[in-house]
C-alpha cells in the first residue's frame, strides 16, 4: 500500500536496531498535571502521549446522561506540531475514528455502572508522533484512569504489530509504517487475554495475522507489567505526593 521501496530489514535487524519482537523504549510518568484528576505521560519510542482524566462529573445538557452508567468520553488529539506536516487544529476523521476505537478499548474495564448520570473524560494529547500513537495513548489513558481513582476491573495495554519486508514484527515506527505492508494495533486486558481493540489495514494472510496476534499478546503483557510497576511505585511513594516515576525498558535507538 505504500510508496517507493526501502529496505527495512538488514542482517535480521530493523533500521533502528531492534529485533522483530522488540518494543521501543517506554517511559512512564504519573500525575504530571495539577488540574486533572489523574494524568499520565507515556513515551513509546518517539511517541509522546499525555493523558488527562476528569470525572466522574455531572453531564451538562441533561439529555446526554445515561440513567444506568457513566458515559465515557475519549478524545485523541494530535498537537499541530506533533507530525512532519503541520496538523490543522481540531478533530479530523482519523482522530474521530481513533477516539471511538480507543473508547471501546477502555470501556470494558471501567466500572461505569458505579456512577450513573455522570461522565468520565479522557483527553489524550499526542505531543510528538512516530507511528503507534493510538497505542501509546491508550496505555497512557489506562494509567491516568487508575491514577484518577476511577474504579476499574483491570488495566488495558496496547501495542501494534505490522509487516515489513514480508516479516511480521512488533511495534512499527513511522518509517516502517510508511513503507510497510500491514499495520495492526491491538489493545488487551493482559491478565485475562481479552482483546478490547483490534484494527488492521494492509495485507495479512490468516497465518501472519495469527503470528501478529501472538506478538501483540506477548508485548501487551510486558507493557502491563510496566504500567503496574509504575502505579505501584507511585502509590508506595504517595506519602510524598506527586513524585514522578520513571520506568525505562527496551533499548530502541531513536
Amino acid at each position, binding site marked *: 500500500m505504500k510508496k517507493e521501496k526501502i529496505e527495512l530489514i538488514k542482517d535480521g535487524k530493523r533500521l533502528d536496531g531492534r529485533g522483530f519482537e522488540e518494543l521501543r523504549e517506554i517511559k512512564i510518568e504519573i500525575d504530571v498535571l495539577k488540574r486533572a484528576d489523574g494524568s499520565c505521560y507515556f513515551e513509546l519510542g518517539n511517541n509522546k502521549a499525555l493523558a488527562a482524566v476528569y470525572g466522574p462529573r455531572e453531564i451538562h445538557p441533561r439529555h446526554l446522561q445515561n440513567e444506568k452508567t457513566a458515559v465515557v468520553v475519549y478524545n485523541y488529539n494530535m498537537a499541530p506540531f506533533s507530525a512532519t506536516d503541520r496538523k490543522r487544529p481540531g478533530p479530523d*476523521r482519523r482522530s474521530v475514528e481513533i477516539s471511538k476505537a480507543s473508547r471501546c478499548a477502555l470501556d*470494558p474495564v471501567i466500572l461505569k455502572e458505579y456512577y450513573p448520570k455522570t461522565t468520565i473524560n479522557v483527553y489524550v494529547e499526542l505531543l510528538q508522533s512516530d507511528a503507534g500513537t493510538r497505542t501509546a495513548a491508550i496505555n497512557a489513558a489506562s494509567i491516568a484512569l487508575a491514577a484518577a481513582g476511577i474504579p476499574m476491573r483491570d488495566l488495558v495495554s496496547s501495542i501494534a504489530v505490522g509487516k515489513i519486508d514480508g516479516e511480521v514484527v512488533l511495534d512499527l515506527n513511522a518509517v516502517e509504517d510508511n513503507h510497510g505492508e500491514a499495520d495492526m494495533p491491538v489493545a488487551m486486558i493482559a491478565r485475562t487475554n481479552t*482483546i478490547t481493540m*483490534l484494527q488492521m489495514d494492509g*495485507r495479512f494472510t490468516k497465518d501472519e495475522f495469527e503470528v501478529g496476534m501472538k506478538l501483540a499478546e506477548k508485548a501487551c503483557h510486558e507493557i502491563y507489567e510496566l504500567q503496574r510497576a509504575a502505579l505501584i511505585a507511585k502509590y508506595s511513594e504517595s506519602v510524598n505526593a506527586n513524585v514522578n516515576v520513571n520506568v525505562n525498558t527496551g533499548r530502541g535507538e531513536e
Partner: protein
Amino acid sequence: MGLEVISDIRTDYVYNLLESGKRIDGRGFHDYREISVERDIVNKAEGSALVKIGDTAVLVGVKLEPGVPFPDTPDRGILMTNAELRPGASPDFEIGPPNEDSIELARIVDRGIRESETIDLEKLCIEEGEKVWMIFIDIHALDNDGNLIDAAALGAIASLSNIRIPNERYGLVLEETEEDTLSIRDTPVAVTLVEVEGNLLVDPNLYEENAAACRLTVSSNADGTLSGIQKSGSGGLKKEQISEMVEIGIEKAGEIREKFL
C-alpha cells in the same frame, strides 16, 4: 413505557433465544439474511449499486472528477470515501455533519478498498503533479435494520466494476492505447460478526447489534488475505473467538464474492 425499557426487553429476547441456540429471525449463526445487489441504478453516477441485506438498504454511488493530486503522490489518483447515515434510514440518525459512526463506517469501507489495492491509482494520473482523477465513493444509508457496514462495503466494490472514466465530460482526449474503463484488480468483501453472550453471529440484524457487546468486521480479498479488521463495541473478545471470526469472515466473503462480484 420508555424506549430504553423496550430496548432492554428486546435484548433479553435475543439472549433467551440464543440460549436455546436460535436467532430471533430463525437464521443459523453463520447465515446472512437475503442479499440483493442491483447495479447502475443512478444514471448520473459513474457507478452505483443498491445493496439490500434483509431490510437494510444502502445505495452507493461513485463519481469521478479531475482534481489536483496530493503533493506526496503526484502521479496517483485520489480515493475519497464518505458515508451519510441519512435521517430517513433510522429514527436514531440525526441531521448534521458526519459523526463517529458514519466516519467509522466510511473509513472501514475505504480501508477495504484501498488496502486491497483493487484500484490502480497510478492509472488515474492525467498529468503528473497537475491533474488526476478523484474517485468519490459515496455511501448513502437508506434503511438501517443492522449491519450497514457489510452492505456499504459490498455496494462500494459492486459499484466500482464497469466504470467508464468520464474523459469526454471534462474535455480530456485519450491516446489510442489508453483505456477509459477503471479496472478492478481485487474484490474485497467485508463480513461483520457480533458476539452475544459467547455466541458469534454473522450479519447481525438491528436487535442483535444492540444486544451485542462486541462487533468485528473482517475485510478479505479474493486470495483469502485480509485487508482490514475493525473491532467495535464496549466489550472484549478472546483470541480464539477472534481467530474463529476471522476464519468465518474469510469464508463468508468467498461465498458473497462468488455470488455477487
